[in-house]
């Protein structure tokens, strides 16, 4: 599980970065045109020519002043023109950002396969990829995508090695991307070494920091796009660790994006906990100058097949996000339960979510007792785990993270990653909040464990059943269950 790369969270010195860079750019022909430090300077020049509103960081500041919540659609197809067409569908709705997902091959650094799929897509006029192949289309492609919209274009730096795609994205004028130092392994990876993954992300953050030092306010995003069945506390832990690793490389603008679980109180509590703890730990690290913004990512769990139900679910995700008072939200679209999203689908989704946000207006979830307790519990869970990680790394999170995986200090229920212990079990309580049925080896404070047990017990009492794996099976389709199946059980 370790490649034995010498690792520390300290900011890379620029020469070390440049030395690494050579091999990165030689991974694929489109990288060679970026050889040399001049290429970076040229990229920065391109950026200097862009207006402020091409920058996700600036749009964050501006929308907060205006008290306006941002709504971000998603795109990603094999060809540049397919991707541009998709984006054009919503240009008159002025999205603040476009979230461009890369395809699976690009994510696995299988650039040849991606190129091959591009060729076949051109031939058949159909997209053979589930995302946009950043490397295959190179800087020219990235700029074409960037220049087709007023929005701030960014990407999900997914899968093990996104260094080359990131070089191309930045040179292409894109202004933000996602931090994947830890989440990546839990989400997508089978056995990629932890140290190498963190090292790759340090490269990405270091380059972003260099741009920022040169007056280009690149934004990095801790995404917590973990499955909708994961504990909120766990998601906050992962995000916080990534925020700190990223800031250590000199990044100055960070989104605290949280994949929600759809329980209003718990999601709001998690969003607030992540903001509070990020500020506190960053300040303690001496990073008072890092700006942070709260965001949500729509529930990444089971989506209903019935369009009506899917639409209702999208709206609830928007309502939760708005009531929680976020800076912005990443949305999904009505047809996404079964197919790769379309431009029309996202236009409709923007109207749906936009209307909900307009109607919620300035309303926020009041600071009730439930919210206070839930937030306190999440904060105490996250402190315990993050402090443990630091301790294991003798103060160095990069080192600590590697050890934490092995020890099961970082662990969850569903993950392809072999080096996770996989001892954790999470279920929903009577109100749909996510609770630990089993927290495995995670060092959770006793109060937290008991709090979760207690709310599981309340549901057990109400349903007259005992919590076990059967609950987990049933909850795999908790949200997506067809209404007809549900009412069929009613005897009248």
């Amino acid at each position, binding site marked *: 599980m370790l490649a034995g790369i010498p690792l520390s969270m300290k900011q890379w010195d620029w020469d070390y970065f440049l030395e690494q860079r050579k091999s990165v750019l030689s991974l694929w022909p489109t990288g060679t045109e970026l050889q040399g430090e001049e290429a970076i300077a040229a990229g920065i020049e391109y950026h200097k020519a862009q207006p402020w509103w091409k920058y996700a960081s600036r749009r964050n500041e501006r929308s907060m002043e205006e008290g306006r919540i941002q709504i971000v659609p998603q795109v990603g197809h094999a060809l540049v023109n397919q991707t541009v067409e998709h984006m054009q569908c919503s240009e008159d709705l002025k999205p603040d950002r476009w979230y461009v997902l890369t395809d*699976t*091959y690009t994510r696995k650094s299988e650039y040849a396969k991606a190129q091959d799929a591009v060729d076949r897509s051109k031939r058949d006029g159909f997209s053979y990829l*589930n995302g946009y192949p950043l490397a295959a289309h190179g800087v020219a492609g990235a700029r074409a995508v960037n220049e087709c919209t007023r929005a701030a274009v960014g990407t999900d730096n997914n899968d093990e090695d996104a260094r080359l795609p990131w070089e191309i994205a930045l040179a292409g004028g894109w202004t933000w991307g996602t931090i994947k130092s830890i989440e990546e392994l839990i989400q997508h990876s*089978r056995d990629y070494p932890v140290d190498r993954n963190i090292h790759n992300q340090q490269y990405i953050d270091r380059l972003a920091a260099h741009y920022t030092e040169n007056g280009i306010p690149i934004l990095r995003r801790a995404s917590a796009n973990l499955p909708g*069945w994961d504990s909120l506390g766990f998601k906050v832990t992962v995000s916080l660790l990534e925020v700190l690793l990223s800031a250590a490389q000199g990044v100055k603008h960070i989104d605290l994006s949280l994949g929600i679980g759809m329980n209003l109180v718990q999601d709001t509590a998690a969003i607030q906990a992540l903001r509070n703890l990020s500020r506190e730990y960053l300040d303690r690290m001496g990073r008072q100058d890092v700006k942070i913004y709260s965001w949500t990512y729509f529930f990444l769990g089971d989506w209903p097949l019935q369009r009506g139900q899917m639409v209702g679910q999208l709206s609830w995700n928007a309502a939760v996000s708005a009531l929680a008072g976020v800076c912005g939200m990443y949305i999904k679209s009505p047809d996404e339960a079964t*197919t790769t999203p379309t431009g029309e689908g996202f236009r409709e989704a923007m109207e749906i979510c936009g209307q909900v946000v307009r109607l919620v207006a300035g309303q926020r979830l009041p600071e009730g007792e439930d919210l206070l307790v839930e937030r306190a519990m999440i904060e105490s869970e996250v402190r315990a785990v993050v402090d443990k990680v630091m301790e294991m790394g003798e103060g160095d999170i990069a080192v600590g993270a590697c050890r934490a995986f092995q020890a099961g200090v970082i662990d969850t229920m569903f993950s*392809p990653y072999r080096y996770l212990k996989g001892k954790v079990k999470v279920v929903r309580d009577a109100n749909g909040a996510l609770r630990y049925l089993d927290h495995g080896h995670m060092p959770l404070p006793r109060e937290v464990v008991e709090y979760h047990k207690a709310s599981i017990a309340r549901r057990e009492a109400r349903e007259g059943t005992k919590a076990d794996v059967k609950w987990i099976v049933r909850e795999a389709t908790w949200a997506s269950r067809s209404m007809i199946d549900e009412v069929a059980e009613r005897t009248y």
Partner: protein
Amino acid sequence: MDAKRRPTVVLGTIGHDAHIVGSSILRIALEEAGFNVVFLGAVVPPEEFIDAARESAADAILVSSLYGMARIDCQDFGAKCAEAGLSKVKLYLGGILVTDPEKWEETEKLFKGYGFHRVYPPQTKTDVAIADLKSDLGVPA
């Protein structure tokens, strides 16, 4: 298959596909139903399914694919199994295979052409799969 022995199935998510929730749920349900499950997890190369099936003398291979690349990942799966002398092993495929949800029949036909005995539409319930397995393997329900 020999009645004394518990029916054995190999299960996992194929190719570069990381979607592991569905196959994990299936695993739990299958074990609850008395099957012996060889669970390979996600991001599993086709060859690994075949090796695991041979080693465990599996009665069936359950392949999951959600990320939209099933067409490519599964193209020659049936052929590979045949080569490996697994022609008696039942091959099931499920997840989200469709590119156009409207045309399920086409999708099913396509993947049956790749050698799968049963192909399932999105969000198929675990009990459906289990019932089919029991009848295909002659396990008393």
